[in-house]
Each structure stands twice: as C-alpha cells, then as structure tokens.
C-alpha cells in the first residue's frame, strides 16, 4: 500500500475542508427544499374542487414512515461511531440496517404515491397535489440517491477496508442522511400534520 507522507495536521485540515464543503452543499439543498415548501404553503388550499390533505392522507401510515426514517438516521449515527472505533463488522451491520430501513421508507412512500395516482389524485389533479408530489417526490429522490450511496460505501468497505476515501465517504454520507431526516420532520409537520388540522 502506498503511504503518503503528509503530516496529520495537514490531513486533518483537508478533512475539515471536505466536510465543510459538503456542509455548504447541504445548506444549498436546504434552499432548494425551502422553495418547494414555499410553493406548497402557497398552493396547499388550491385543490381545484378535489380532495385536500385531510381526505387523502392516513396519519398512522405517515407516522410509521416517520419512525422508520428517524430510526435509520439513528442507526446511521451508530455506523459512524463504529467507524471511529474501526470496527468494520459493526459498521457493515449498521449500514445494512440503515439501508433496509431507508428502502422500507421508500417502498412505503411509493406505495402511497401509486395509491394516490390510482385513485385519480395524481399531480395533474390540482395545484395542491402538484406541489405535494414535487416536495415529497424530491425528498424521495434524495433518499434513493442515499440508498445508492450506502450500497457503494458498503462495497468499498468490504473491498478496501477503512481507506481514507471510505472514511471520508461514510462521514459525508452520515451528514446527508441526518439532513434528509431533518427535512422529513418538516414534511411530516407541514404537509401531513397541518394538512390534517386545517382546511
């Protein structure tokens, strides 16, 4: 294995800069979600004579989704802690749990989407549903990207162990995954809970 003669201080500096760069990306992604939330907030009453959130959404179903995603955020943190202990088997285990929970969340979301479309309540039905599908769908796309990322990290971990790139990847992935859970808190609150309260 090729060893690079760089002092730990410089490595630490580069590592901190990479993390910060990724943090800035996450902040811009927050702005993307802010525009989608603003669109939804403006259009949530424009149901065009069709059903609103109260008629369409099942709260127990969405609570299940929320708890699954929250748990996967937690297990992702456990994977990161195991990485700091350099316990490869445990990292693999917690990454697998995170992946399964994330996939389950995505399956539930797709199930909800297909049900809505089959009942004739697709994004073409009203401005409210257009903004709903755009907001929740964009989050779902991020989750899909996250699942692909876990798969790639898992393969790299098996083949190369804790290389600098894998460690960096795991750290950035955990930021991304926690961020997606934070966005979901607001989708859960603003789209589903407030939807059940108002209109």
């Amino acid at each position, binding site marked *: 294995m090729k060893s690079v003669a760089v002092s730990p201080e410089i490595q630490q500096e580069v590592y901190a800069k990479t993390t910060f760069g990724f943090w800035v990306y996450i902040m811009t992604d*927050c702005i993307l979600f802010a525009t989608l939330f603003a669109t939804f907030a403006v259009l949530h009453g424009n149901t065009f004579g069709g059903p609103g959130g109260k008629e369409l959404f099942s709260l127990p179903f969405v609570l299940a989704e929320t708890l699954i995603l929250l748990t996967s955020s937690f297990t992702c943190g456990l994977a990161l802690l195991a990485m700091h202990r350099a316990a490869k088997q445990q990292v693999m285990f917690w990454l697998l749990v995170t992946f399964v929970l994330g996939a389950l969340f995505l399956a539930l979301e797709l199930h909800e989407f297909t049900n809505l479309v089959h009942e004739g309540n697709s994004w073409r039905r009203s401005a409210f549903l257009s903004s709903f599908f755009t907001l929740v769908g964009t989050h779902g796309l991020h989750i899909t990207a996250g699942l692909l990322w876990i798969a790639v990290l898992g393969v790299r971990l098996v083949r190369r162990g804790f290389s600098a790139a894998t460690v960096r990847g795991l750290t950035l992935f955990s930021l991304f995954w926690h961020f997606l859970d934070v966005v979901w808190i607001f989708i859960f*609150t603003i789209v589903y809970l407030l939807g059940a*309260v108002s209109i």
Partner: protein
Amino acid sequence: MSERAPHQQPALQVREAARGSLTTYVTGFSLSLVLTLIAYMAVSRQLLSKDILVGTIIILAVAQLVVQMVFFLHLGSESKPRWNITAFLFMLMVLSILVFGSLWIMHNLNYHMHGAPGMQTDQYIMQDEGVHL
C-alpha cells in the same frame, strides 16, 4: 490487504467533540421520538383548539430541528472559526425570506384579486375556464 489499526489512520482522528458519542446519539434519538409522538398525539386526538394546535406542532418541529442539529449533526460543537454554523444561519435567513416572503406576497395577491383566499380563486378560475365538476 489487511485492515490497518486505528492509530495509523489520520482520517479517523477527528476531534472528539465534533463526532459525538453513543450518549449524544441515544439522547437525540429519544428526544426526537418523544417530540414526534407528542405532535402526532396532539393532532390525532384534537385536544387543543385549532390555532393553538397549529402553533404547538410547529414549535415541536422546530424543537426537533434543534435536537437533531445538536445531537446528530453536532452543530455548535466545532472550534473557532465557526463556519458551519455561520453557513447554517445564513441559510436560515434565505429560507425565511423565501418562505415568509412567498406567503406574504401571495396572500396579498389573492386579497387584491377578489378579496378571496386561494380556494375562492379556484372557483373563479373554474368559472372563467368553464370547468364543471
């Protein structure tokens, strides 16, 4: 290729404060769970009047944002200069302008058009376009 020992991996030597511990993750997870369930119960049982309920669940969501930022994303535990939190606060400012600005402008637009909220604007558009449901 053999696994290297932890002390030979510079990339693993992150400052203790910036990476959290089992305690911080368990605390963050438990608090998030409690806040989510309280918000859910408040809405499903409809215990409060509508305005108070809306305020309560928004406060609960913001509380959970703070919990996850501190315990999962370790915001605020970095050393100076604190660029992460600076970027975060700037993002919050842009986010507020976007969301509250949009709501404010669109509310005024609805008001000036027909003195009506969004749903009545729908009625108007439907009449105008000859849509019958």
